[in-house]
């Protein structure tokens, strides 16, 4: 959209962070090459520039890391909670101090806007370590019995959409409860986890307590299947989550899964339209829609459909897509070529199945992986784009007439992670919220996170909760 005021570029300097030309695996407090000598490259999704070469973990490395974590477990779990707490507080502080470096690094490696890494990811990462630090010496009060015990070695596999935040969600409660950790970051975004190894070094964390194994799905599978792992935590796709559930069946391993979603964002006719539009945008275009709890299905009451859609399209026309390091950028790059291909295929399928596609006028950079914010109208529940998780900046718009219909449509999915409700009527919020089968319900807001608040899904969005007091349970032996 032509504007009277053009923005001048306002790029954040990338010189604040040093990226080494190569990284090893972080095992037992030291960087090491992969046993098989394999490496892979991490590229910047916005430019396709190779950022670094990273050791690729295999089964042998997983075994080594699990042994290191096992060796560290005895002392770490025996440490008084107050001492463990201090390590976590130190980590939180160092993350705060180095948050600018980390924000730039995350933006380079992931492709998300600096505005989001700086203002959302990093503050939340620090907040999670602060929150769980305080629990470490108060576990007897957490409601899981008088002497809750750690489980042992936690194998954790995290995705690429919030690389450092997902690390914090997994590592902070695991360490607070006295477990030791082997974490596998995603193959497209290993750098901030490796940077975190340096944070652990600065914090003086005992060796072996945190081990980081960059690698692909094979390393994740080996970690999940390792016989000396006591706890498996996974965030990622529902298909992989099911595979993991089968793998741990019949073992002692405790399992938590944070999986996919197809969140419904329900707009009633009395909703404040401008606020709702902001929430809809936040819900599906935050992090390029690569969010498991994204509000990817917009359910609009029929009587306000046109009004909401007009306002939404107007708002989308003001979104700025481009260089993620530019502080004015709203929409960054898609994380990988593979993900871009998936989004493209599903959007094309939406068009082929007869939904009407719309994007604002939007110039895409010539290199990197980009997808314009897109919305589909005339979507029915039978359409693929209303059923499958797209994990990209693609919004499917459906309509409803009555609250009953809204609830039925919102619940008509195997997923059950998030939902949104927009209405000025309090009783309607409470009634609808109580009938939605979803782990997080945002009313008159969307995509809000906080370390004190449990997050997690119903149905095939997984089980267990992360965050809050509930998040401790995943790492404790409870009865």
């Amino acid at each position, binding site marked *: 959209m032509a504007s009277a005021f053009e923005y001048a570029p306002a790029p954040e300097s990338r010189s604040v962070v040093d990226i080494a030309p190569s990284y090893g695996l972080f095992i037992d407090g030291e960087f090491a090459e992969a046993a098989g000598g394999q490496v892979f490259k991490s590229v910047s999704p916005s430019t396709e520039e190779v950022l670094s070469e990273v050791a690729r973990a295999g089964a042998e490395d997983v075994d080594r890391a699990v042994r290191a974590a096992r060796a560290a477990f005895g002392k770490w779990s025996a440490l008084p909670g107050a001492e463990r707490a201090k390590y976590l507080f130190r980590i939180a502080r160092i993350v705060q101090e180095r948050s600018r470096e980390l924000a730039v690094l995350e933006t380079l490696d992931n492709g998300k806007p600096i505005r989001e890494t700086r203002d959302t990811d990093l503050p939340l990462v620090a*907040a999670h370590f602060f929150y769980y630090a305080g629990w470490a010496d108060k576990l007897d009060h957490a409601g899981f019995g008088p002497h809750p015990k750690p489980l042992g070695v936690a194998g954790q596999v995290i995705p690429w959409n919030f690389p450092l935040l997902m690390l914090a969600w997994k590592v902070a409660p695991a360490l607070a409860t006295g477990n030791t950790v082997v974490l596998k970051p995603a193959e497209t975004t290993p750098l901030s986890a490796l940077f975190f190894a340096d944070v652990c070094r600065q914090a003086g964390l005992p060796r072996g307590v945190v081990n980081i194994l960059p690698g692909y799905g094979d390393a994740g599978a080996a970690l999940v299947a390792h016989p000396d792992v006591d706890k498996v935590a996974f965030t990622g796709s529902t298909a992989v989550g099911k595979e993991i*559930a089968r793998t741990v069946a019949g073992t002692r391993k405790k399992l938590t899964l944070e*999986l996919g979603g197809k969140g419904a964002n329900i707009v009633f006719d009395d909703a404040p339209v401008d606020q709702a539009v902001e929430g809809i945008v936040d819900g599906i275009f935050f992090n390029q829609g690569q969010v498991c709890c994204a509000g990817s299905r917009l359910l609009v009451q029929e009587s306000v459909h046109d009004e909401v859609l007009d306002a939404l399209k107007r708002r989308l026309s003001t979104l700025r897509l481009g260089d993620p390091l530019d502080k004015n950028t709203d929409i960054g790059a898609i994380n990988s070529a593979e993900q871009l291909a998936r989004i493209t295929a599903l959007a094309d399928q939406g068009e082929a199945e007869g939904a009407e596609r719309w994007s604002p006028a939007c110039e895409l950079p010539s290199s990197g992986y980009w997808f314009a914010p897109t919305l589909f109208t005339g979507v029915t529940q039978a359409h693929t784009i209303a059923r499958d998780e797209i994990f990209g900046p693609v919004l499917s718009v459906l309509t409803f007439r009555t609250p009953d219909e809204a609830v039925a449509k919102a619940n008509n999915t195997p997923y059950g992670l998030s939902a949104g409700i927009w209405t000025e009527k309090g009783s309607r919020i409470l009634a609808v919220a109580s009938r939605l089968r979803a782990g997080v319900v*945002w009313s008159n807001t969307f995509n809000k996170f*906080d370390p004190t608040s449990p997050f997690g899904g119903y149905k095939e969005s997984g089980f267990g909760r992360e965050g809050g007091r509930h998040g401790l349970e995943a790492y404790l032996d409870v*009865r």
Partner: protein
Amino acid sequence: MSDKTEKIEKTGRLSVPKTYKLYVGGKFPRSESGRVYEVTDSQGKWLANAPLSSRKDARDAVVAARRAFGGWSGATAYNRGQVLYRVAEMLEGRRDQFVREVAAAEGLSKPRAAVVVDAAVDRWVWYAGWTDKIAQVIGGANPVAGPFFNLSSPEPTGVVAVLAPQESSFLGLVSVVAPVIATGNTAVVVACAKAPLPALSLGEVLATSDVPGGVVNVLSGRTAEIAAPLAAHQDVNAIDLAGADEALAKELEIAAADNLKRVLRPQAVDYFETPGTERMTAFLETKTVWHPTGALGASGSSY
């Protein structure tokens, strides 16, 4: 039948033995398969023919449990507590019957069986008291760092398949069924295979205790045969594997992964001990509902 034979000799009256039937959707059907199996006491003496449930019976029970879920989970916690307490009252009223059945089923002396039955009734009362407390104990308000208010509340996960323990036909059964329904789930219960009669009689108690039909459904038969379709069923949300041996538990857990059922693995339990809350929390979801708060005083027009 030794008791009964004795009585005939003493009084000349022929006793009226019970035909044991399933309890599904608030009704007492026979197995759709028309099959029964012989249930004996610990001495091998014939007690009754119990229905040998089929896969179809399991599926019918899931349909009944699903149909009952909305009403039962939507009832107030206070109401559910009243209904559960009513079950305990009815159990107490049939105490002698259960003592007889448990003694026969588990080869216990009458006094020992009485201890078991009393513990089971007390266990049921214990869970009746939990219905309106669990949300306060495990839910709560979260101190969000921002202008938002949010609450985390537990909600029942849905239809729970319960494989009752094999070693404790009544106390064990009650200890696994009551927590599932106390929190608002509905249950499809597979009775202890060898000693199903106390479980089938529990169905009769439930039917007369204001428990809505379908909230608890009791099947008898071979555990593995009935459990397999339940673990694979796409409309079952969770499974308690208490009554499965190691090999079966693993097989069922793998099947349960297909729709990511919540799984409670078998574990060593002393059913005489007061339980923790795990049997309730295993089948609860946590829902966190957010709303913005008006920033009172910060900006005059924000609320």
